[in-house]
């Protein structure tokens, strides 16, 4: 008997519209979805479909034009900017395509800057940062380098450490391998898989099929709606059947 999953995020009737002077662009409308705790949810879709916009709305980084988002029983759409900032620091971690590490800081300082907002004391934060760096295979000597002095893969793995330093409820990742070569991409994705296996909820936006295979639930966004929802839960990692299932799903979506 399947175990009923706990809803982490519930979005109802979301609408997002960008206005520029007299013209407006509708990204999505009447969009509703649930995200479950412990899932590695992947959002896919064509360019401009609104994948990132949806993800940033769910994370409280951006505000939907209409609709409500309940995140762990809290309606974050009613939060003001400061409350949203506190919500993000307590509940979310972010990994960006362009990595966005603070340039004037070492990798370690980037992580500790985020860690300073958590509830642990400085010693505990440093200890956890070291453990996480070890988890993502970044040695101590690299931790002291600036983001401009390390490879893209190393910088992105440091970005993941920064995202999870405060034990967020969800890690939001926006095309995390989009700017990396295949070796670095693999290393980064392995980190995502590793932390997901340890129970971390992840929502990731990608248009890369290989990356999407790391998830256990694929949402496809099209015409401003969740056009398809595919579960890969029953397929083991790196299983051919899993890949086939995803291919079929994407073909169905018109990918």
């Amino acid at each position, binding site marked *: 008997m399947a175990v009923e999953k706990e809803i982490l995020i519930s979005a109802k009737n979301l609408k997002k519209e960008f206005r520029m002077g007299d013209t407006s662009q509708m990204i999505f409308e009447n969009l509703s979805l649930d995200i479950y705790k412990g899932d590695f949810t992947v959002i896919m879709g064509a360019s401009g479909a609104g994948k990132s916009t949806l993800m*940033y709305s769910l994370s409280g*980084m*951006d*505000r939907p034009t209409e609709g409500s988002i309940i995140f762990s029983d809290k309606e974050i759409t009613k939060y003001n*900017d*400061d409350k949203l*900032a*506190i*919500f*993000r*620091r*307590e509940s*979310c*971690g*972010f990994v*960006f395509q*362009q990595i*966005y*590490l*603070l*340039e*004037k*800081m*070492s990798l*370690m*300082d980037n992580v*500790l*800057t*985020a*860690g*300073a*907002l958590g509830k642990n004391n*400085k010693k505990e*934060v*440093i200890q956890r*940062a070291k453990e996480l760096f070890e988890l993502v295979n970044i040695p101590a000597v690299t*931790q*002291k380098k*600036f983001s*401009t002095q390390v490879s893209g893969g190393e910088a992105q793995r440091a970005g993941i450490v*920064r995202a999870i330093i*405060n034990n967020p409820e969800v890690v939001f990742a926006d095309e995390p391998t989009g700017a990396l070569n295949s070796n670095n991409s693999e290393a980064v994705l392995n980190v995502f898989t590793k932390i997901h296996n340890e129970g971390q909820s992840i929502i990731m936006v990608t248009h890369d099929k290989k990356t999407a295979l790391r998830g256990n639930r694929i949402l496809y966004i099209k015409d401003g709606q969740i056009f398809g929802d595919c579960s890969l839960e029953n397929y083991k990692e790196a299983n051919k059947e899993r890949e086939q299932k995803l291919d079929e799903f994407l073909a169905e979506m018109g990918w």
Partner: protein
Amino acid sequence: MIQSQLFYNLKKDKGSYISFGIVILITAIMLNLALVLVFQVDRAYDNKFEALDTATINVCIPQIQDTDTLKDDIKALESVSEVECREAVFLEAVVKDFRGTDFSMNTVFYNKDESRDMNKLDIKEESAESTKESIYLPLYVASFGEFGLDDEIIYEIGDKKHTFLVSGVLEEMQYGNYGKGLMGAYLPKSVYEEFASEYEEHMVTEYSIIANDNTEINALNNEISSLLEEKSITMLTSCDKASTKDTRTMVCNLLILVLLAFALVILLVSVFLCKFRISNSIEEDMVNMGVLKALGYTGNMIIGSVVLPYLMVTLVASLFGVIASYGILPSLSELLTLQAGFSFRLLFDIKGFICVETILVFIVTVFTYTAAKRIRKLQPINAIRGNSEGKAIKKNYFPLEETHGNTKLLLVLKQMFSNGKQNALLFGVSFVLTILIAFASTLFYNVIVEPNNFISTLSEEMPEIVIYPKEQHEATIVSDLQSNSDIKTVLKYTMGTVNIDDVPVTVFACEDFSKVSNDLCYLGENPDEKNEIALGSSFEGKYKLGEQIEIQNGDISCSYEITGFVQSVNYQGNVCELSMEGYAALNSESIVPSLYVYLQDGTDVESLIADIEEQHGDMISNQVNYQKMTETTQEMYAGITSIIVIVIFVLTILIALFVLYIVIKTLLVQRKQELGIYKAIGYSNWQLMVQVMGSFLPSSALAVLLSSGLGLVYVPQMNQFIFQTIGAMKNNMEVSFTFLMIFALIQIVVNFIISISLTKPIKKISAYALIKED
């Protein structure tokens, strides 16, 4: 094509250009005010001087000593071109209710209707009808003393009061202002004849002398002195063109100095600002510049598009600044007329305009070009990739893992140290602006809080009451006053005129200079013994301490040892100090000194004067509420000082606002993405505002505190320089550390408030937008 790039630059950064423009506008206002004063006041003075055929030197001698041949003898002198003589009455008079107080002045009363070839009078206002008691006042006495047409003016001479009706106000260029201690008064013929008949013993002959071209005034002075000495004639007064001009234009010259200093400081701030802004805009527009270079634009074309907006703003803002300054000039000339004693109109000055435009455009061009010239060295591909040497990160300040302390505080320190250039700029600007504030706060302290410090620097002795006793009652009054518990000290003090090197010099004689409240001696010691003298600062170059000097008073001559040098702003240092016995030796008749009365703290001066009048009314000729006179003077200075302090403070705040605006705006543009990252990981608006402010406010606050603290060293130097310019070799201005710190804290708080409002835009941008808008 480069025009479109130029307008793009102007449009993109219009806030910064507006701020820069306003700073340039303020600089242009000050610079043009100073230059118009430089170019026009001096000329206006000389024109007026010549229009009224004013004599180069005017000397008064007792009429009884005058001879029939003296005029010819003077005319025969090598340096003399023309001579005119006329009779007048010269005496010390107290003008009642002169700006609310009694004012003692040496006054020369003239027959206004006598025809004049020299020292002509320019009547500015005149009553329709002249009365039997008519008087015409010089502009200075009328405007500063607050006497209007048909007002009453009372001259008290000895025991007698003369009441006149002001029938006219005129301009003359013969006398200085009250600083010279000598004024004219002009009576219609019949009034003069009646007045002169009462004071025959005070009749004088005035010789007005016009020198040949290229004659040195000092040389002419010496020739006339020698001639009079030869003929044993006493020179009672001497007024020459140079010293009169110095007195009348003193405030104007001081104002020019202050305006130029301010303009320089503000200009310095503005050019550093544009240099800072250009350096940053190169970083911000690096990719665009790379693309333009790749398209074939030359380095100079791109530099032009960066430099030209600043030059355009400078041209326009300085033009408006010059125009705006002409709105201020009428009130300024009115203020200066009050002190200069002659009216003048300041007109549009093309020289001033050209100088302002040239100076500002030249300096801005040099600074902007220096800042922008590195564009030439940019390699297009590196620029397109956004690589610049300036962007290289050299050091990870305060590594969080290794540095003890609160992480959020360490983040502020990191920001502060990694923005070195910006902090250096703010440090420098804040330091310089604080110099202005420190100067203003010290002025404020010494004029408003401790007014005696300022007044005593400009004045001579300052008792609370001056009593003129009748000769036979002097001892009784002194003894009675000394037994009064409200009175602290009674000092015999008198003023007179003696001759040093045949030039009339004001003498201050006192029974004990160790008891005076305002020690004028700035070098050596006051005279104590009968044969000792302290000379005014104007003699310092000529005589040395310990030398003997011969002093004449009429036929009597005595030798004194120079014990010190004293200052006197009002007499341009043309004074000396003698002990009472020393002064008595120069007088054939006994002296009846005034009694300078110093009161216990809290004593009511008015009621004490009333008591003295009641008890000793018949024993005294007159008494003057000197405290009231000091207060009147202080009120006048307090008004001007308050305006100066307010103007300096407003200007400083305004400049601080523009500087902070440009710095914060630059910072927000540069760190937009970084702030987005902070927001994304959960930093609140307030945390980010504190972090941004924390990255520059400490350096600015440190500069303010340091500069204020150092004010203890540099403000006395500034005061020394300024007061020496007007003849006060020693000033009593105190620099209050508490006051410096109070003003410093106000400045820091104001900077903080400005910064909070300027960093508020952080709130309006969503973290998502920050990240998306690279």
